[in-house]
């Protein structure tokens, strides 16, 4: 019996969770349950990120994405706890169309995942032994965001050491974008009028 590769084991575990809960999101009709499944799926994806060595992205995924989805969940509860909207069943025809679509897309994407030979090559134990156990990711990431690519300093390939400019400008743009979005969202979400009987009839 070959020794269990724990990395693979956890990959399988998390990927299974992610995939199953993603499909569960599609299948479920209760909004709160959908949100629950979604959080599970996203959490599992965060686990996949940790496995891939992207600690910071994983933590961020947990914090922001899952936190954001949490709010979604609350919305779901608030908007649907009254009863009549708990389940908006998808019609059968839609299911068939969606399944067809999913089939076509999967048929397109899965061959694409294996189409590049380099992507199929796995890390050898020798190579992994050379890679340090847990690379520091947060600080280089932060430096990259403020404009310095310190992770490229130790790059062997001289070509890849070129262009060490980081992501300062995108970072600034995203910051401003976020601010604008928050203000806009706050503005949009103001209570302007209640739904009237006439509006409901529309």
């Amino acid at each position, binding site marked *: 019996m070959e020794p269990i590769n724990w990395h693979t084991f956890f990959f399988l575990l998390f990927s299974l969770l992610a995939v199953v809960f993603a499909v569960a999101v599609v299948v479920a009709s209760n909004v709160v349950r959908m949100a629950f499944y979604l959080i599970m799926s996203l959490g599992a994806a965060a686990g996949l990120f940790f496995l891939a060595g992207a600690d910071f992205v994983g933590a961020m995924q947990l914090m922001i994405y899952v936190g954001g989805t949490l709010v979604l969940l609350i919305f779901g509860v608030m908007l649907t706890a009254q009863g009549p909207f708990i389940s908006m069943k998808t019609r059968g025809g839609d299911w068939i169309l969606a399944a067809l679509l999913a089939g*076509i897309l999967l048929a*397109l994407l899965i061959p694409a995942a294996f189409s590049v030979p380099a992507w199929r090559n796995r890390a050898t134990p020798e190579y992994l032994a050379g890679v340090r156990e847990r690379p520091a990711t947060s600080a280089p990431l932060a430096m990259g965001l403020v404009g310095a690519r310190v992770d490229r300093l130790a790059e062997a390939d001289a070509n890849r050491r070129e262009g060490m400019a980081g992501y300062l400008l995108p970072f600034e743009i995203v910051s401003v974008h976020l601010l604008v979005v928050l203000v806009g969202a706050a503005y949009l979400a103001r209570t302007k009028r209640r739904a009237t009987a006439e509006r409901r009839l529309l």
Partner: protein
Amino acid sequence: MNEQTLSNLLPVLLGAAWLLPLASFAVVVLVGPRLGKAGLLAGHVATGAILGSAVLSLLALGAWLYVFGFTSGQAAHHGGAAGEHVQQEAEHNAAARGRADASHGEGGDAIADAPEAAAPAVAAADGSTLSEPVRAGKRRARPAPMVSLPPPVKHAFTDDWYTLAEFGSLRVTISYYIDALTVVMFVMVSVIATCIHFYSIGYMHEELHDVTDHEVTLSDGSYLHRRGRFHRFFQYLSLFCFSMLGLVVAGNIFMVFVFWELVGICSYFLIGFYIERRSATKAANKAFIVNRVGDFGFIIGLMALWSSLGTFAFGDVPGQGPGIFSQVRNPQGEPPHALAAPTGMVLASAQERVAEIVRDHFNVPDVDPQSAWSEAVARSGGWRAEGLGYGLLVLAGLGIFCGCVGKSAQFPLHVWLPDAMEGPTPVSALVHSATMVAAGVYLGARFFPVFTPEVLLVIAYVGAITLLLAATIAITAVDIKRVLAYSTVSQLGYMMLSLGVGGWLAGVFHLITHAFFKSLLFLGSGSVIHACHTNDMTRMGGLRRKMPWTAYTMLVGCLAIIGAGIPFLIGLSGYYSKDAILAQVLSFRGVNMFHGNILFAVAAGGAALTAFYMFRLWYLTFAGEPRDEHIYEHAHESPQIMYVPLVILAGAAVVAGWPILGLTDLLEQARPLGDVGRGVMWASLAYPHEHASHAASIHVPATLAAAATALGGFLLATLFYGLRWLNPNEVRQQFPAVYRWLWNKWYFDEFYDLVFVRPVHFVAALAARFDRRWIDGLIDSLARWVRGVSILDDVLDRYLVDGAVNLTADWFWSLGRGLRNVQTGRLRQYVMLIVVGAVALTFLLEAFVSLP
């Protein structure tokens, strides 16, 4: 300080004094309503500005006195009629006697001493010089003092401040002409205006908040309710002062005209201040339109002057040609400053002869065309002797005087002034004393050297008619302000009469003194109206107990206007000036018996009437028992800010004429150079020198006549209204026709209505009918034609152009209708389409693009 410094200093001082009210006007126009509560500060700004003007004017006066003192080289011998000058007078009389002795038989110089005796001699005398020999005789008779006398000089500074435009020889400039008259007028205008400004702050306080005008009834029966216009009132006052000061300081006749019109428009604004009242707007319109009639003559005079003289300037502006005065009265002539038709006018009148000369010169080759002009000028002396050009001079004088008639409300155009009482009372005071009507007399005085004897006689008659007319109307008037208005007209008649009989100094002197006591009287009447809320004297009475300050200051004003005083000793200001006028008329009578008799009778009668109606006013208002208890109950003394100016003005009214103050001496410095001379058209018309009136033989009877008439009028008024021994109603019933005649103001308004307004309406109706029938018809037919064309155009547009556009639009419409089926608005469908599109794109890329 010397004359040079003064010539630099005065334009600055007076220019600043002139522009301060303009600055205030600008400030109030721009930010008026926001100045203080409801614009209260606007009043303070305007008052501060005019106060500044007054201070600057007084500074200018002080500077002038510092340099020139009270005497001038021209009038060293002049003295007043009062006791302080007895010694001087004696000297003067001695001189005159000496003169008479020395130059007896030499023509008109004898008139100075014995007018009646000398009159035939004068009439027969040579017309070339009349008054000049007086001076000449004096020189001969009293060589010692004569030698010490400097040559005739008049201190006047003139220059341009700014040249607005230059069209060929025409220079339109902002210039100044400053002599003693200008300075005195500045002081008078600014001081009185200052008093009136202060008074107005109190009088106009109602305008600080919303006003309900009980004299304006709206269509729904309610009274008009409007916002207060305090700041606007002061805005107009500032502009008014600016205009008047500009008129006074003006150095050319064009500038005078501009400010003349500005004064007119300001009075229009102020008379129509209560714009919602129909009577106010009508009065404002009347004032404005009647003034336009006078201005029409003014413009004719202006054109006559400029077209022949080529200049607007009064004096000789450095660097330019001679001014109007120098051209009319050539300083280098023989005798100097004698009135003669100027060369320009002579040439203008002799156009045909000049044309002949020019033709001759052009026919001869090799001759400079310019020489034609030189020759014409050389020959102009002969033409002048033929009398050419003199008519133009008379025309110019009459034209200018027309302006004065309009502005000073003289006989044919006097109708606007009583109606102008519709304005607020401080405005009446300003209009009647210092600004509007003073402008006319001021212009007459300023243009005095240009007036020929014929013109002056017209002026004298116009003044006399006005005087009598207004005085008689004033007897029956019951509106307190109207009485004062007619009194003003009457006094203006006095001034014009004085100017007309050659009494330049007396006229100007009366202008100044009258300004003080008339503004006093008007402000007093304003105070009464403020207290009683009515203008009707018949409803007043006994008010002196309620408002002593007003009553007794007004009493001072009445005494001043009737010329009260102890003969030969002392009197109020009116005493001196009216005395001087009567003396002047008497002096004139000495050489022109016929005219003189008429004019003196009118003047003396007018003096009596003045005393009568003024004291009628005072008794009716302040004395006796109250006739309307309600009004009496509510009457009250005005606030301090209103009666303090009254007191100040009363003080001025008392002392302004006192010889010790030297006002006449100061004015004498501004006397136009040269004498009036003798008429050319009416050769019998001769003018004595003004100083001839100082002779005791003229002076004493004049004083006595003035005192007697004033006393008579006063006594009559006292009998009727003070002591009530006589009943005015009985008199009224006895002479109903006369009463009606006077009550209806000699039917002038009706006459004008009949003679001018109705015909104009008739002609206008005719013109309107012509307009409607023919011109409108023509235009209507044109319009119909255009309409036909446009209908055709419309058809083309609708069916051809619109058709093409609509076709295109329909096409796109159907296209859009087809496409909208794709837009289902269903989110999920879109998502699916996106995915399908992405998949299709991938397959297409796979199929047609070779990926690396």
